């Protein structure tokens, strides 16, 4: 595939401010509750039936929920596991879990917490759930750098081995959380929600609520 070949955002979701959006529609909302309770509410709304979810750290829980919205719910990606890539980024790395682990150091810290003290574990959890065995990358940057993510995703498609890529932002620290994920492929899939894969659309969806991009 050449660098100039058209790519599309086939689906997108945004989770934050106790709301979950699927493409342009508000999918779930639970105002006035702690983030953990909101995530359990969203898990139930998605009817996930995935007990392992309860054992994950909060970043992985958030990422798996967001991934479920753009990859689950009856979506057929129609490609091999090795053709499915994940490119994620955030600004707080695994700090939310790191802090929890450090707080346990006075006694015996939990091995189950320790295994989540890396940010890219969320990519692994999504991969296990959705059978992704292609390219993987996780970046930490102070702000969402969609230009960089766009270029990176373009590059892995150009390599010719990737047919679908889950990409975006998954960040959590305390009560502040935001997951904005996009499903990208070369297939326009005739969906009304399908849009051209470019930095403007990435930013526009990311900052939609704030109205920062017209």
């Amino acid at each position, binding site marked *: 595939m050449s660098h100039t070949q058209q790519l599309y955002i086939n689906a997108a979701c945004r989770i934050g401010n106790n709301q979950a959006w699927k493409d342009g529609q508000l999918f779930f909302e639970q105002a006035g509750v702690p983030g953990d309770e909101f995530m359990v509410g969203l898990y139930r709304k998605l009817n996930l039936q995935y*007990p392992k979810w*309860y*054992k994950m750290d909060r970043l992985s829980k958030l990422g798996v929920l967001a991934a479920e919205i753009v990859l689950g719910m009856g979506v057929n990606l129609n490609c091999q596991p090795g053709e499915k890539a994940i490119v994620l980024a955030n600004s707080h790395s695994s700090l939310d879990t790191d802090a929890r682990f450090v707080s346990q150091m006075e*006694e*015996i810290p*939990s*091995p*189950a917490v320790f*295994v989540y003290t890396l940010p890219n574990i969320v990519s692994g959890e999504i991969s296990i759930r959705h059978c992704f065995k292609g390219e993987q990358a996780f970046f930490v940057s102070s702000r969402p750098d969609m230009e960089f993510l766009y270029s990176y995703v373009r590059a892995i498609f150009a390599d010719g081995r990737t047919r679908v890529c889950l990409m975006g932002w998954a960040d959590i620290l305390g009560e502040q959380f935001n997951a904005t994920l996009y499903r990208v492929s070369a297939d326009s899939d005739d969906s009304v929600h399908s849009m051209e894969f470019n930095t403007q659309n990435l930013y526009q969806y990311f900052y939609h609520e704030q109205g920062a991009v017209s």
Partner: protein
Amino acid sequence: MNREQLVEDLKQQIIEQLNLQVKPEEIVAGDPLFNEGLGLDSIDALELIVLMQQKYRIKLANAEEGPKVFQSIDTMADYIIAHQPAANK
């Protein structure tokens, strides 16, 4: 704490420590904890070791005993009773 109470306590502790989505009454004390039973994994096994140490003050003397001790709630209870500090007996 008698053996029956210990078994119930272990069920509750394991559910809390491992974030299991089951109720204590759904766990059969003699059922396997790993694979076909509760479906625990290797990280859960480490959590069980920590649980034994933190809650019951019992350290596994020999790591090779692990598979036998953590076979079921029943075997865990037996091990705790056999090895608990004298003051707790």
